[in-house]
């Protein structure tokens, strides 16, 4: 039997950590993810978790501890945000290159300068090419559910890749929500026993981890690494289905909202998708054929499935909560636009950057986007391909 609990996003993650009880947790607190680390420390002090809880002197060291512990053969997690994730940068690539299924909860927050503690996706999107699987959550329930699934996905023997789970800083990390918390035993059963792959502490086997590669091997090792994340899609799908069968909430690569007969579509990730649903409802009641597509998995990007879902649209707006200065559109936009390229008849597609540094995005903003899409669909003309929402111009 699951129980209903009133938790914020950070507490939801900590609750999942308590149930999973990884062998090693290493984290350095940083706003807005601090309460995850704090709550885990409290669980540890209260004797509710058996795993080692390590407090290193920085996030770089926290990820280094995770890498060491994971190489040693343990199930490992961490949590951080923003500058903390940025400080982990070089170690993120090492975790992925060594194929260590570390799971990290990231309370998404903007990057300095200027310094700002509020939510946007600059941190995790910045880690886009580090080789980690990236899952984004709309609310506390999804953060909890995604975090549990992350272990199953990353630890799959064909995948063996680190996974990060994003929850929007403050908007989710600090907002209370009533969520279904599953039984400890059921969560443990769902996760299963941790399987070692070449643990360093197995002294019966001689091996070197992470030796230097020159021009003759680096490329092959990188290709070998890419295979892990490319093996992830069927696993993500199977784990999402199994989670649905067991706990009643099924997950896939993305969620479609009122997309059945839609001609217009807004693509947006994480908490803003919740607001967007209200805007879609209002626009629908005004007779507009609009829907929402909320990507859940950003890496690996489900380009075929997303293109299939979007190819019949007349006009699409992709909303990014991060920017890529100097690029042709923000990161989610370039993925979606590229995914549609192979179709002879392509929808019109535009990009808006929103919510940097936690700037609000409201129902009215989504409705404005909807009306712009309607105009693009009617005229067949795109006036501005790339713009900003709720910015003082």
């Amino acid at each position, binding site marked *: 039997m699951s129980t209903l609990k009133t938790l914020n996003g950070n507490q939801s993650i900590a609750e999942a950590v308590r149930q999973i009880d990884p062998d090693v947790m290493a984290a350095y607190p940083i706003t807005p993810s601090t309460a995850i680390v704090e709550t885990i420390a409290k669980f540890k002090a209260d004797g509710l978790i058996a795993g080692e809880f390590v407090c290193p002197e920085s996030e770089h060291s926290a990820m280094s501890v995770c890498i060491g512990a994971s190489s040693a053969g343990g199930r490992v997690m961490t949590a951080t945000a923003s500058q903390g994730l940025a400080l982990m940068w070089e170690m993120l690539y090492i975790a992925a290159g060594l194929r260590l299924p570390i799971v990290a909860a990231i309370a998404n927050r903007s990057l300095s300068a200027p310094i700002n503690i509020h939510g946007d996706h600059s941190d995790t999107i910045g880690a886009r090419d580090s080789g980690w699987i990236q899952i984004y959550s709309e609310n506390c329930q999804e953060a909890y559910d995604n975090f549990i699934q992350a272990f199953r996905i990353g630890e799959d023997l064909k995948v063996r890749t680190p996974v990060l789970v994003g929850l929007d800083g403050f908007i989710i990390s600090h907002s209370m929500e009533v969520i279904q918390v599953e039984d400890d035993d059921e969560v443990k059963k769902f996760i299963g026993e941790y399987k070692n792959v*070449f643990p360093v502490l197995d002294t019966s086997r001689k*091996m070197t981890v992470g030796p230097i590669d020159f021009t*003759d*091997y680096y490329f092959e090792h990188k290709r070998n690494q890419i295979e892990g994340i490319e093996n992830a899609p069927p696993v993500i799908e199977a784990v999402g289905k199994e989670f649905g069968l067991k706990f009643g909430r099924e997950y896939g690569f993305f969620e479609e909202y009122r997309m059945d007969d839609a001609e217009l579509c807004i693509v947006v990730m994480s908490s803003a998708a919740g607001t967007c649903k209200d805007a879609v409802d209002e626009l629908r009641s005004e007779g507009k054929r609009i829907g929402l597509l909320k990507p859940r998995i950003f890496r690996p990007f489900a380009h075929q499935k997303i293109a299939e879902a979007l190819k019949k649209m007349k006009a699409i707006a992709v909303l990014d909560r991060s920017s890529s200065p100097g690029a042709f559109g923000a990161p989610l936009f370039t993925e979606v636009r590229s995914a549609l390229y192979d179709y002879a008849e392509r929808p019109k597609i535009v990009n808006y950057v929103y919510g940097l540094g936690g700037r609000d995005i409201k129902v009215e903003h989504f409705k404005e986007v909807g009306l712009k899409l309607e105009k693009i669909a009617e005229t067949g003309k795109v006036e501005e391909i790339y713009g900003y929402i709720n910015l003082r111009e």
Partner: protein
Amino acid sequence: MKKETWKELTIGTINLDAGNSVKNLTGTWRSGKKPQFIEENCIQCFFCWLYCPHSAIRVEGEEVKGINYDYCTGCGICSVECPPKEKAITMIKEEMKLAGGSTE
């Protein structure tokens, strides 16, 4: 030596043939200068052995006996660290013949 394809490699850069750097003859990187061991000046302090980044100091029994040129890159650290006034390791031109205790 046949090199593995990316599919044949063990995941996570793991090398199950640990210690195989012995096959990497770093002595081939040497250019210009090489160390020369002069046994009669040697006080057996083992500084050279401690400092050599390539474990290229040849030790037989309990004594420093010379240089292993298969791995010596000619960096010269051993010669700098060698304490006696009359050094027991001096750097000489690569093409010069080795005196006394040094063997190729």
